[in-house]
C-alpha cells in the first residue's frame, strides 16, 4: 500500500501512522458489517409482515420445519399409550390421547417395522414349509414389494378416506390425523405376522382375519362420533370403504407373502410336485437349457 512496500519497517512516526491507518480500516470494516446486519434485520421484519410467496407455500413440505409440529411434545409414554389403544378396538380412546394431536413418528416406524416383519415372516414360513430335500432360496424381492405396498397405502388409503368423509360432510378432519390413526390401526398386523411365520394355512387365515377385524373396528369405532354427527345417512359408505381396504390388504398379504413359497428355479412355477433334485440333475438341466 505505501510506496516503500514493506510493512512494519521504519521510524516511530511511521509506525504510529500505520497503526492509526489499521485502526481506521478496522472501524470502516466494522461499520460496513454492522450496516449489513441492520439491513438484514430490517429485511427480516419486512418479510414477516408480508404474505408467503407462492414458492414458499409450495416448497414448505420440503423443509424440516414443516414437520416439526408433528413431533413436538412426543414422549415414549404417549407413543406407548397410542400403541396400546390400537389393540383394544372397542374403546374409542385414540383421539383423547394428547388431545388428538397427530404425530408422524408412528406412521414411519410402524410401517418400517411391518416391512421387516412381513418380509422376515414370509421367508420363515416358506423355509419351514419347504421339504428337506429341496434347497430353500431366500426371497429378497419381498422387501421392495412390501415397502412399496405399505408406504403406498400409508398415504393413499387415508387420503381416500379423508376425501370421502369430507365430501359426505365430515368436519374436524385433518389429513395428517387420518394418516396417523390409519397407521396405528395397522399395528396389530405386526404380532399377527410373527404368528403367521408358522406355515399352517388355517392358522395363517385365522390370524389374518383377526388382524382385519381388529384394524377395521379400531378405525370405525374411533370415527363413530364423527360419522354419527356429520355424515349420518351415508356412513355405510365410509364403513364399507375402510373394511374393504383392510380386506384387500390382508388378502394381498396372504396371497403373496404367506403362500407356500417353494418356487421351482427352472420353471418358476409355485405349485410343482415335490421331486427329489440332486446336484447332478441340476448340472444336467442347467446345461440342457442353454
Amino acid at each position, binding site marked *: 500500500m505505501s510506496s516503500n*512496500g514493506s*510493512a512494519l519497517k521504519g521510524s516511530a512516526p511511521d509506525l504510529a501512522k500505520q497503526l492509526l491507518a489499521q485502526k481506521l480500516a478496522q472501524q470502516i470494516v466494522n461499520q460496513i458489517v454492522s450496516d449489513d446486519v441492520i439491513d438484514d434485520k430490517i429485511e427480516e421484519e419486512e418479510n414477516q409482515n408480508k404474505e408467503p410467496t407462492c414458492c414458499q407455500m409450495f416448497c414448505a413440505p420440503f423443509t424440516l420445519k414443516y414437520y416439526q409440529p408433528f413431533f413436538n411434545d412426543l414422549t415414549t409414554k404417549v407413543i406407548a399409550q397410542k400403541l396400546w389403544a390400537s389393540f383394544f378396538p372397542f374403546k374409542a380412546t385414540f383421539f383423547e390421547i394428547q388431545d388428538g394431536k397427530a404425530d408422524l413418528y408412528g406412521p414411519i*416406524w410402524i410401517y418400517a417395522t411391518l416391512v421387516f416383519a412381513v418380509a422376515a415372516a414370509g421367508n420363515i414360513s416358506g423355509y419351514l414349509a419347504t421339504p428337506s430335500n429341496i434347497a430353500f432360496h*431366500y426371497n429378497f424381492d419381498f422387501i421392495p414389494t412390501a415397502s412399496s405396498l405399505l408406504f403406498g397405502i400409508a398415504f393413499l388409503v387415508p387420503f381416500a378416506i379423508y376425501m370421502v368423509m369430507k365430501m359426505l360432510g365430515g368436519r374436524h378432519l385433518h389429513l395428517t390425523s387420518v394418516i396417523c390413526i390409519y397407521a396405528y390401526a395397522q399395528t396389530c398386523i405386526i404380532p399377527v405376522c410373527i404368528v403367521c411365520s408358522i406355515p399352517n394355512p388355517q392358522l395363517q387365515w385365522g390370524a389374518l382375519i383377526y388382524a382385519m377385524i381388529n384394524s377395521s373396528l379400531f378405525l370405525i369405532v374411533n370415527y363413530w362420533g364423527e360419522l354419527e354427527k356429520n355424515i349420518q345417512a351415508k356412513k355405510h359408505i365410509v364403513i364399507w370403504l375402510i373394511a374393504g381396504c383392510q380386506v384387500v390388504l390382508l388378502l394381498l398379504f396372504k396371497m403373496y407373502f404367506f403362500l407356500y413359497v417353494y418356487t421351482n428355479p427352472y420353471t418358476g412355477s409355485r405349485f410343482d410336485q415335490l421331486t427329489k433334485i440332486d446336484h447332478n440333475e441340476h448340472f444336467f438341466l442347467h446345461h440342457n437349457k442353454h
Partner: protein
Amino acid sequence: MTDNQQVPFGSGMFQGQAKFVDYAHMNQQEVQVNTLDEPVTDTLLRDINMILYKLSYVIIPRMKETQGRKLRNWDLWGPLLLSLLLAMTLGINSNQSSDTIFGTIFIIMWGGSAVITVNAKLLGGQVSFFQSVCVLGYCVFPINIAAVLITFFQSYFGFFLRIIIVGVAFLWSTFSSLSFMSSMMNEEKKVISVYPIFLFYMFLSWFCIFI
C-alpha cells in the same frame, strides 16, 4: 508484492509465491491448499488412517462423552466403503437375486441413516446431520465382520452358530451407536429415538443370517 512478509488471502493458489510465505500468518485454508503438491499415496494414506482411527472407536464402544473428538470430523468415506463391502459380501453368495440384495442394502443403509437422523432432529435432539449419518455408517462394521466370516467360512458353520455370530454383531453395533445417540436425547424420548437404530441394525443383520 513479493517483498511482503504477509501473504494476502487468496495467494495460496499461486504456487510461485509459496516460497515467500510466512507460515505464522497463514490461515487454515491456505495450509490445506498446499496439499495439492503431495503424492497421491500420502492423501490416500491420510484418509485411510482417519477411517481406521474411527473404526477403532467402533470396535471398543465407549459410553462416555470422550467420543466428541471422533464426531467433530465426520467423513462419509468410511460408511461408503463399509456399505459397499457389506452389499458385495452378501451379494456374492446369492445367485439369482444379487442385484436386489445390493440395491436393498445400499438403500436401507443410506436411506435408513438419513431417516433416523431426521427423526432424531425432529424429536428435538441437538445432533448434526452428517455426524449422525457418519456414526451410524461406521457402526455397521461389526455386521460387516459377521458377513465376511459367514461368507467365507460357510462350510464350517451350522445354523445356530450363524445366529450366534450375527446376534453378537448386531448387539455390538447397536451398543456402539447407542452411546452416541442416547446422549443427545431427553430421558423421556430415549426409547423412541433408540428404537429406529435397533430396527436398522436388525434389518441389516437379518440379511447375514440368510445369505
